[in-house]
């Protein structure tokens, strides 16, 4: 075969493969959204699940997912940014840095079920809390810390050097420079990373099965205590999230319309992921524009 023809054929194949992958994604998301059809009906989104009969909603699970997201971000973001600052500004090349890097890589590659089991051991059994929202949030924080650290480190490293030197030259300490000069310029990029992490947290299930539990008490919004078990904002109650609910519907199927609910709940999850992704993208573009001075 002559090599020009071969080149044309392979170019065609590469176009074909890429096209198929895009079609696969469109089909996948299209299918989920069509099957989940009327998932945005308020009676489904905010209704309580029913046991043994059809027509239940996902209200408590949806609330739990959001609440879990907020709590775990509150826990993991400060530590992630702190570790990022350390790696980018304070750490010196050497054994310690090497150990930290190896730890981050190890943590990042841990299967989420293993992190969930670690959570079961430490945050559920050793603390005697039982299955609680806080245990789940802690497990997810462990899962997300490496990614947040990396994002923060990269963002802080890419902050402009002359400005930093100017600040140090004016007599600011290193920490003052970081807090007043470097962080503000790194925040948008870190925020993009946080939003993407949020998408992952929202869909995470394996780490939550044995930490936040598989039951969602009906929520009564007249009580706003953080500890009282009957309060929706309680950190010490079991909190089944939407993803865990989908898994449970599939494996236990305790309602007759389990597959309908799973379809709709999947659609809700995918819509949330699309929203997170879109906002990260818009934010990313804004940052790019402000850096390149187009606006």
């Amino acid at each position, binding site marked *: 075969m002559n*090599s020009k023809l071969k*080149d044309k054929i*392979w*170019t065609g*194949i*590469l*176009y074909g*493969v*890429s096209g198929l*992958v*895009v079609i696969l*994604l469109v089909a*996948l*998301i299209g*299918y989920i959204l069509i099957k989940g059809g009327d998932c945005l009906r308020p009676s489904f989104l905010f209704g309580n699940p029913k046991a043994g009969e059809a027509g239940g909603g996902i209200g408590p699970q949806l609330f739990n997912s959001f609440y879990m997201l907020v709590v775990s971000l509150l826990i993991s973001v400060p*530590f992630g*940014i*702190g*570790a990022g*600052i*350390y790696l980018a500004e*304070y750490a010196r090349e050497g054994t310690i840095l090497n150990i*930290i890097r190896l*730890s*981050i890589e*190890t*943590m990042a*590659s*841990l*299967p989420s*079920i*293993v*992190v969930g*089991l*670690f959570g079961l051991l430490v945050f559920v059994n050793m603390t005697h809390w039982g299955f609680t929202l806080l245990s789940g949030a802690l497990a997810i924080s*462990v899962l997300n810390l490496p990614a947040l650290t990396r994002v923060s480190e990269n963002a802080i490293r890419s902050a402009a050097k002359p400005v930093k030197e100017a600040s140090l030259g004016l007599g*600011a*300490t*290193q*920490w*003052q420079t970081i*807090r007043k000069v470097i962080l503000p310029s790194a925040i948008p990029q870190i925020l993009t990373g946080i939003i993407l992490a949020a*998408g*992952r947290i*929202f*869909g995470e299930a*394996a780490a939550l*099965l*044995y930490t936040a539990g598989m039951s969602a008490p009906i929520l009564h919004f007249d009580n706003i205590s953080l500890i009282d078990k009957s309060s929706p904002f309680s950190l010490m109650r079991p909190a089944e999230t939407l*993803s*865990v609910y989908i*898994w449970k519907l599939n*494996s236990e199927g305790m309602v007759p319309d389990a*597959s309908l609910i799973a379809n709709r709940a*999947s659609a809700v*999850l*995918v819509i949330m*992921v*699309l929203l997170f*992704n879109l906002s990260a993208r818009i934010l990313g573009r804004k940052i790019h524009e402000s850096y390149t001075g187009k606006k």
Partner: protein
Amino acid sequence: MGKRTAWQKLKSEYIGRGFAIFCGLLIVILTLSIIGFVAFKGLNTFIKHGYSLREFLFTSQWNPDSDKPKLGALIFIAGSTLVSIGAVIISAPISIALAIFMNYISPRIGEKVLQPTLELFVGIPSVVYGWIGFSVLLPFIKKGFGGIGFSLIAGILVLSIMILPTIASIASDSVKTVPQSYLEASYGLGATRWQTISKVIVPAAKNGILTGIVLGLARAFGEALAVQMVIGNSIKFAENLLSPTATLTSILTMDMGNTVSGTAWNDALWSLAFLLLVISFVFILAIRLIGKRGEIK
């Protein structure tokens, strides 16, 4: 301007620096305690119950709840290995094709279409992959190829989509960094684009591509729910692609909630979890090794 007082120094530098250092150490402490705790529980099988490691790794009888428990984990190890390698075999060529397309055939389509596509593939939660596998792929396999639907091939297919973005994005980063001079030399010798891609770009980027493949393998190995939902979870070896089997992660997901802490069964599950941890650590070391090899050259 006088010297800063001790309190000012503390406020302006040391508290912040202390927090940053603490966060850095926290990561190390967390990693060590995860390894420590899981190892502590996982080694019980061998220390407390006196079960032999060889039998655990290389025999396939799994009767953890009988009086004389048999704890051979070979079925799960084989299941995890087959399903991950199968997923990589499907996913790696497609990912490399995508990486090359994005950088050398049409960077514009790559940036505007393929990049967002890959990001969305990453974003879709694993339970949703599992659910789609369960409700679409299983009936399709059952109708088209026979069997019960739950099967090794279903697990492989679901996983291959899930690890596609991992391999593709790392492969893309590495083909991107092939020096421009290599390309110019190749074109200058009269090579076509495909000859340049297959003879110059891919060989030059092979370390990065290999890293992507190992990371994809690691992700496939550790994925729990999506696999558990489609693989059937029957504790026997898969005779062919259409027969159901079980993996390390699927048995953990299924059984951890049914067992009582301290029993041989429960400890055996922790041993499986520890095994998973060890395997993921081996993958990390492999990646480091590949990276080192790249540096020396």
